[in-house]
């Protein structure tokens, strides 16, 4: 019962892109009506950065400043993962109301509703990344990165979080309930970022945990960001691992999500 497999010629790629951008515009319009969302996108990263830097920083790294140099990349990744549930929340809301059916009954690309949500998330991610860079700068973090490295960091962040947002999207399609997506996001993101080397160095952890932390895709993303932002650690291996993980997660969960979406 997969409607997408109908032989009907749908729309061309350019039109599909335009429709996705219209959908993204719509998703971002929500910010205009609920400016508090912009606060969500800004307050949480600021709060987490302040908390970790000043509460744990001294204990972990000797001083808040030294800690920030170590943890900033990880804080950026953690924050980005928290944001990666927006697309899923939006999609679940559309599914729950009749809106998704309206879109499906229109002569538009099948991909447009979800692609638009994901595109809007990219904008959110970039905004939040910029906020974090400013906060970090105010607290004394000086990225040793040129424009190319900063752009690279943003790109890696976008690729990584887009890949991981397929997991909540899949949940959202199955549950059709934005609140479940939110709960799930928290339950997934908290442990996966805390069991990475985002906030605490790997070599302080006990053996078995260390094995997982080294494998954890979030660790790879942290190290990639660290490398790009500070230039003090190697870039190649973590970047490769991050991209490989992103591809794998996308392959598995995008397939599952698309299949569940078509089955409705």
């Amino acid at each position, binding site marked *: *019962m997969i*409607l997408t497999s*109908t*032989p*009907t*010629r*749908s*729309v061309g790629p350019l*039109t599909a892109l335009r*429709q996705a951008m*219209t*959908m993204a*515009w*719509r998703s971002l*319009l*929500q910010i205009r*009506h*609920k400016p508090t969302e912009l606060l969500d996108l800004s307050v949480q990263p600021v709060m987490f950065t302040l908390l970790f830097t000043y509460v744990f920083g001294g204990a972990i790294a000797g001083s808040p400043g030294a800690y920030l140099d170590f943890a900033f990349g990880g804080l950026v990744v953690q924050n980005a993962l928290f944001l990666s549930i927006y697309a899923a929340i939006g999609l679940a809301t*559309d*599914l*729950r*109301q*009749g*809106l*998704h*059916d*309206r*879109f*499906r*009954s*229109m*002569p*538009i690309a099948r991909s*447009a509703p979800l692609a638009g949500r994901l595109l809007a998330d990219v904008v959110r991610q970039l905004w939040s990344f910029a906020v974090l860079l400013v906060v970090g700068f105010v607290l004394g973090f000086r990225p040793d990165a040129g424009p190319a490295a900063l752009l690279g960091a943003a790109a890696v962040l976008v690729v990584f979080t887009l890949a991981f947002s397929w997991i909540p999207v899949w949940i959202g399609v199955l549950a*059709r309930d934005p609140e479940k997506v939110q709960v799930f996001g928290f339950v997934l993101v908290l442990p996966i970022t805390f069991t990475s080397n985002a906030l605490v160095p790997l070599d302080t952890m006990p053996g078995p945990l260390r094995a997982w932390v080294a494998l954890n895709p979030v660790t790879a993303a942290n190290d990639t960001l660290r490398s790009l932002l500070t230039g003090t650690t190697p870039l190649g291996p973590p970047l490769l691992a991050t991209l490989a993980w992103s591809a794998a997660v996308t392959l598995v969960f995008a397939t599952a999500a698309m299949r569940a979406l078509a*089955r*409705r």
Partner: protein
Amino acid sequence: MDDNAIEAEGLVKQFRGNVGLAGIDLRVPAGSVLALLGPNGAGKTTAVRILGTLLRPDAGHARVGGLDVVARAHEVRGLIGLTGQYAGVDETLTGTENLVLVGRLLGLARRAARARAAELLAEFGLVDAATRPAATYSGGMRRRLDLAASLVGRPRVLFLDEPTTGLDPASRVELWAAVRGLVDGGTTVLLTTQYLEEADRLADDVVVLDRGRVVAAGTPDGLKASLGGSALELRPVLADRLDVVATTARDLARGEVTVVDGAVRATVSDPDVLPAVLRRLDEAGVHLAEVSLRRASLDEVFLSLVDTPSRVDPTPRTATRTGSPA
């Protein structure tokens, strides 16, 4: 097929053992209105979703505007507008933004989309609410916005799933007028409803569904005439003469006779019964306070067609059942 905007043959849809549709045929001539009537769970929404390309039938075929709804779904979507049973509007967006969104998706330029939105908002009395988020709308306003959204692309064929459920009588009449206006402009409309009056007022043809089957079809008047007969009501001045009246009615009307609220009601198919009854009662010296003979209402026809047990929906639905059945 040229003159039928909607055609369906033998549509079947099963849901994990639940019958959605058990094989229905439909034919809606272009420019006419068909009402799908039926109790909860009859299969109305299932039929609309198949015709609106949201659901694939397990068996059977359907064409809208001559195009197969499965094989040429994308083209069919270009012809239709669909207002589902659950409102298809973005609650966080304003009325204008909702309509502009649909217009932009349909390929209108920004300015054209705005103009079309303004036109529809005016048509549906939403100008004052145009800049408020739809979340602040009343149920009736949301319904109107939903209908307006289906009309942005000027569809030739319009599907309305219970368009007036939850509307107050005044809004209902307004919506009827809007639908009639569209039909006058040449649009073909298929609507579902549980209100027989609605079918009576709006539809050229009525199809009554029950448990996924067509149990009756015809014009509203035809259905009433063929199935209902006429309802005779006699109210004696003195309540103690009710027995006499009832006996007389039983003798002459032959149909079912009931006594309700101090009046005798009978169903008659032969109009000559009325003078005969009156003559007999006059001879018996019974004075009548009230006499009426009228066409059976569509409600009476409906209830006589639909099995009572099926009116209890087999799958209990909670108020939170949302989105749409797959």
